[in-house]
């Protein structure tokens, strides 16, 4: 397969302000050669700003951008050799698909035969080898994004930048193209920054996921780690579903939740400063057993939502009337019809406390 650059990226202490709004605050991120990092966060969290600063499309920021050991902060966008894929409508409407892919080489004055051959190679890579002669508007949304990917890779970019490339597509195409992007990225080995607001997408595609809130990178770690060991309460609440259970601090390392003793994990926020708080427990960290309506963990099933392999069960605690969500395999959920009385058990090795 085609030669690609393998470069490292270091973003150090980036800060960007639009008027009064801080878009990015002390943002630092290292990306290893060939790694795919996904920045995840709600809109307005600064993830796109970080990507655009790396691309050179946003300037007037402080901090350093080091690519392969060289600070490129003063280099204009068109000299940074970045491959960029936008959300949508980025294909040049008057050029054929092949011309679109060859564009970066054309402006680099590569001769026609060479650049067309290279463009064809990339179209083959994204599975659109036959579509070279078409115009952008003759392709589906998914195909257009494949072409945009081929165009971004044609110039052998230092870094591949993907700015919500899937969010304008239908659900089914989105999953398919997501896996395809991962396959191609692994194959060509280009260092990649992927920006998305979709958790599932970030988890599925990235080597590491960077969770962002209000311009701050809260945690950047492999997907499993972000999900299972969130660095702090903010990350825990943002990524995946979370129950907040009333908890009492019984020792520096243990909590009491509905009469059960659970290990306390101390996050970035430090040790608890109060005696009580809300323990963060994921729906799949809770299980049910049939109960007799007594005891602190007693509850009543109020609703079941069938989600295919899993079923989401909502229960109301007898003691404090709070509602919890429990997720379990659908086959097991059959045992718990609506209205039945149950006991809730916590099956987590350790939990974070929101205090």
């Amino acid at each position, binding site marked *: 397969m085609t030669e690609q650059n393998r470069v490292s990226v270091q973003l150090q202490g980036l800060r960007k302000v639009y008027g009064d709004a801080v878009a990015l605050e002390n943002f630092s991120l290292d990306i290893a050669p060939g790694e795919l990092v996904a920045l995840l966060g709600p809109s307005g969290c600064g993830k796109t700003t970080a990507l655009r600063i790396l691309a050179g499309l946003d300037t007037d920021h402080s901090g350093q951008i080091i690519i392969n050991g060289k600070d490129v902060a003063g280099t204009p966008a*068109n000299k940074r050799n970045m491959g960029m894929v936008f959300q949508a409508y980025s294909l*040049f409407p008057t050029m054929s698909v092949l011309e679109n892919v060859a564009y970066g080489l054309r402006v680099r004055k590569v001769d026609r035969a060479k650049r067309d051959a290279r463009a064809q190679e990339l179209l083959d890579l994204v599975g659109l080898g036959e579509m070279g002669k078409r115009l952008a508007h003759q392709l589906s949304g998914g195909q257009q994004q494949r072409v945009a990917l081929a165009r971004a890779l044609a110039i052998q970019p230092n870094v591949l930048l993907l700015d919500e490339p899937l969010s304008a597509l239908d659900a089914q195409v989105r999953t398919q193209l997501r896996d395809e992007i991962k396959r191609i990225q692994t194959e060509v080995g280009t260092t990649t920054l992927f920006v998305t607001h979709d958790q599932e997408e970030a988890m599925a595609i990235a080597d590491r996921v960077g969770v962002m809130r209000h311009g701050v990178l809260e945690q950047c770690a492999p997907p499993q780690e972000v999900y299972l060991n969130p660095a702090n309460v903010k990350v825990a609440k943002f990524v995946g579903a979370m129950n907040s259970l009333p908890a009492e601090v019984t020792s520096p390392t243990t909590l009491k939740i509905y009469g059960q003793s659970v290990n306390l994990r101390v996050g970035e926020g430090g040790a608890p400063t109060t005696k009580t708080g809300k323990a963060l427990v994921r729906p799949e960290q809770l299980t049910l057993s049939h109960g007799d309506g007594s005891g602190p963990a007693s509850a009543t099933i109020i609703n079941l939502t069938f989600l295919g392999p899993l079923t989401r069960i909502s229960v109301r605690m007898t003691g404090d009337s709070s509602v919890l969500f429990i997720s379990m395999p659908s086959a097991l959920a059959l045992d718990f019809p609506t209205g039945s009385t149950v006991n809730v058990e916590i099956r987590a090795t350790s939990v974070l406390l929101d205090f």
Partner: protein
Amino acid sequence: MKRKLTPANYLALLAATSFFVFPLIAAFEFSLRVNLGKSHGFDNFRWVFQQEGFKTNLGVSFRLALLTAVAVLVLMVPTVVYLHLGGGRWKRMIEFICLVPLVVPVISFALGVGTAFPVFLQSTVYELSFLYVIVSLPYTYRALDVGLSSIPLLTLVEASRASGASMRQTLLFVIVPTIRSAVNGAVFLAIALSLGEFTLAVLLHWDTFPTWIANISQGHILNAIALSVLSLVGAWLVVVVMAIAPKSLRSNKTQEATS
């Protein structure tokens, strides 16, 4: 979009057609008169083509049109593109400037030019081209502005920049082809204005095709009528054929967006 026309609509279209067609037919009939109206023929047309001034003045007007078109492109395309990108805060100011020529009657403008311009500029007929650029500003600005509003300009520019293109390459390879029909519209306007403009040409004492027609009309009235019919019908044919030609001959889908 096609809807049913009412009888009143048909009546309006019929009345309009007659109002515009009858003078044309009448003028055409006049232009065919020879031997003091005793018979008909194409002598008046033939006479026109034999005149030395026909070729030279038409040539001057075409060269003026060409220069005006080029000047409009070079001046206006980068300017309006910039207003749609980083220069948005100046858009209102530039819009206002572009409307000023509507408020300044051409005759007033001509007076100012006569006194204000230095000799070196006033010594060439091509000074008219620069003035035509000014007079056509309201129309060319509008055409380009509408064209640029109908495309995802920012994304295209950023995609091009990220691909490694300079601003100049982006303009030439991406933006201009994408707004081809709007650019064509602006150029057509500028050309049409240059070919037909009379006031500035006559007051600044230049000979162009329109002033030549006015000149020969003193004494060769039927020939002038022949020439008038010829130029109007000629222009009309060119424009209509271009407008209804099959889509493949015209530029691509941005045409729908801007028309």
